[in-house]
């Protein structure tokens, strides 16, 4: 009997083992399918589809479960042909976005399509350990500062209590030894100070100190009048250059496209933001909701992200606060520096080749979460660079023209202001 039960136990165990193992294997295969499907989805589908919301195409997690796999295989491989063939289901599906048929993917295999469908069914897995938000980390730093202050206060309190205790103990010892305690004469503080100020030498010293400190503060104040280095105004939208220019490595010129061709670097209009933020909504960081800062772009444009339509009557321009305030009496041209002077500026400011020339004056913008004025923008600062920077006439269309004009003058030929760029509108009208 014992033997039988033992065999039975063993057999049972192996069955459990095998079934557990096979279940594991199946789930692993599924996971692999979904992972492959995710890659394909990101490559081919996500331009028009999202899992949980309508974009150019419908939300896949809503639509896919209502369709048969057989239909989906045909539809994905060649939707326009299926619609043209008059398949009632396909015709119905094409009504979602009448202006845009679904792209045909004739090269996709059935296995690939199935793995995409597996990914759609499974959905996006949340990464373990939710990412800490910036607000949380800021809170921590705030807390730690408060903690340090508290520690200092407590230690001062402890010191005071301890010194009191020492004094009391000393008194006790003296009393025990039978020595009479001489009570210190308590002099009022005001009388003490008055006594101090009747000393002429002290008064002289005091006034000297006062003059030196006030003088140096005044001097510094005067030097820094109208110098805005470090000026960091609060902006209506918390746009982070650290994220866009740093993490995302988007070129400065993508948004400030004026810098290379005009006087102004130009603040991008909101349509430039929408080039990316029509799709990028940072929902992962806000529990599936649109980031409140990105929502501000939508509000300013009167854009409804659900229906993806613009309402012109609700438009309200964003009022950015100007950071770099060059005085109106000083003329500065971005393109002149960024295009003509690029090599000279790079050399003078010692920029690395991978850094954009903009960093020479604007500082490490790719590390600034909030933009601030990096350089003083004073006349002295401009002049210093203009004295030191070395210009090279080689491979530079501007200086080649200047040199050519000088050659003409040397030869005694006729030369006009127009030849030297005197016909440019901005020479007079700026």
């Amino acid at each position, binding site marked *: 009997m014992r033997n039988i039960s033992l065999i039975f136990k063993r057999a049972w165990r192996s069955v459990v083992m095998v079934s557990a193992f096979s279940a594991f294997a199946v789930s692993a295969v599924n996971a692999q399918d979904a992972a492959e499907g995710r890659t394909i989805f990101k490559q081919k589908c996500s331009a028009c589809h999202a899992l949980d919301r309508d974009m150019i195409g419908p939300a896949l997690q809503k639509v896919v479960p209502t369709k048969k796999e057989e239909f989906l295989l045909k539809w994905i491989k060649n939707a326009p042909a299926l619609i043209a063939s008059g398949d009632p289901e396909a015709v119905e599906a094409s009504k979602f976005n009448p202006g845009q048929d679904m*792209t045909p993917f004739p090269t996709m295999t059935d296995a690939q399509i199935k793995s995409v469908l597996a990914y759609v069914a499974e959905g996006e897995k949340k990464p373990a350990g939710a990412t800490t938000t910036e607000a949380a980390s800021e809170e921590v730093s705030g807390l730690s500062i408060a903690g340090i202050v508290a520690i200092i206060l407590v230690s001062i309190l402890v010191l005071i209590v301890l010194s009191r205790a020492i004094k009391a103990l000393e008194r006790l010892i003296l009393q025990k030894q039978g020595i009479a305690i001489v009570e210190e004469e308590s002099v009022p503080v005001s009388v003490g100070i008055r006594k101090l100020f009747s000393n002429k030498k002290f008064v002289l010293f005091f006034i000297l100190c006062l003059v030196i400190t006030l003088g140096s503060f005044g001097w510094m104040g005067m030097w820094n009048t109208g110098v805005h280095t470090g000026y960091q105004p609060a902006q209506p939208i918390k746009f982070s250059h650290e994220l866009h220019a740093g*993490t995302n490595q988007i*070129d400065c010129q993508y948004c400030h496209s004026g810098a290379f061709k005009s006087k102004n670097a130009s603040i991008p209009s909101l349509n*430039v933001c929408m*080039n990316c933020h029509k799709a990028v909504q940072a929902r992962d960081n806000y529990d599936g909701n649109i980031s409140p800062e990105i929502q501000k772009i939508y509000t300013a444009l009167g854009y409804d992200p659900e229906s993806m339509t613009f309402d012109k009557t609700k438009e309200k*321009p964003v009022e950015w606060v100007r950071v770099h305030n060059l005085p109106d009496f000083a003329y500065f041209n971005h393109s002149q520096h960024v295009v003509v002077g690029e090599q000279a500026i790079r050399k003078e400011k010692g920029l690395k080749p991978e850094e954009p020339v903009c960093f020479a004056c604007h500082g490490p913008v790719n590390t600034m979460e909030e933009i601030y004025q990096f350089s003083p923008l004073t006349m002295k600062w401009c002049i210093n660079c203009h004295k030191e920077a070395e210009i090279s006439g080689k491979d530079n269309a501007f200086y080649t023209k200047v040199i050519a004009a000088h050659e003409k003058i040397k030869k005694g030929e006729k030369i006009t202001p127009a030849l030297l760029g005197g016909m440019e509108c901005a020479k007079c009208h700026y």
Partner: protein
Amino acid sequence: MNKNKIVLAAFVAFAFAATISACRDKRSMGLEYARNMYDPLGYNPDQPNKNFKNGQTAQMPPKNTVPVGFEQDEFYPNSKEGYEAAGANMVNPLPADKKNLAEGQHLYKVFCSPCHGDNGDGQGHLVKIEKFTGVPAYHGPDANSSRGGLMQDLTAGKIYHTITYGLNNMGSHASQITPRERWKVVMYVQQLQKIK
């Protein structure tokens, strides 16, 4: 006690100066002199302006006008028909020389490569870090255009039309890239289409 009063006044002045200079607020421009020499008399393009209906200084050019120095190409509407017509009729007006190609490459790097990748393989930095997905490659036998056909077979006019109006998740780049610049980008993209 006159002397005491003077000393007291000096002390207060010192404390005042110290506090003023200590709180240099990064949100303010600090001490300023003759601010009116800094502010422009004319309007900056990004300033509010009561003279216009919408309260902005930056205005669109009036209808049927073209600003000096801005070339205008033949107009094709943002529709399927417009796209096909542009693909059939538009020809790159610029000669395919080294200078134009180099400029096209620079513009491509700035405006296109964040998503489409330096080689046009659809694997730009933003795609790699999964900020932006679903970007097609320009070459390869399985890179389909969402408007039919292969990406590598797109004509210059079709590429130009797409840059001008955008498509799917890609926005219009007409405000950032002038028509002439667009043709330079098209020229460079057509080089990338040839990659095997």
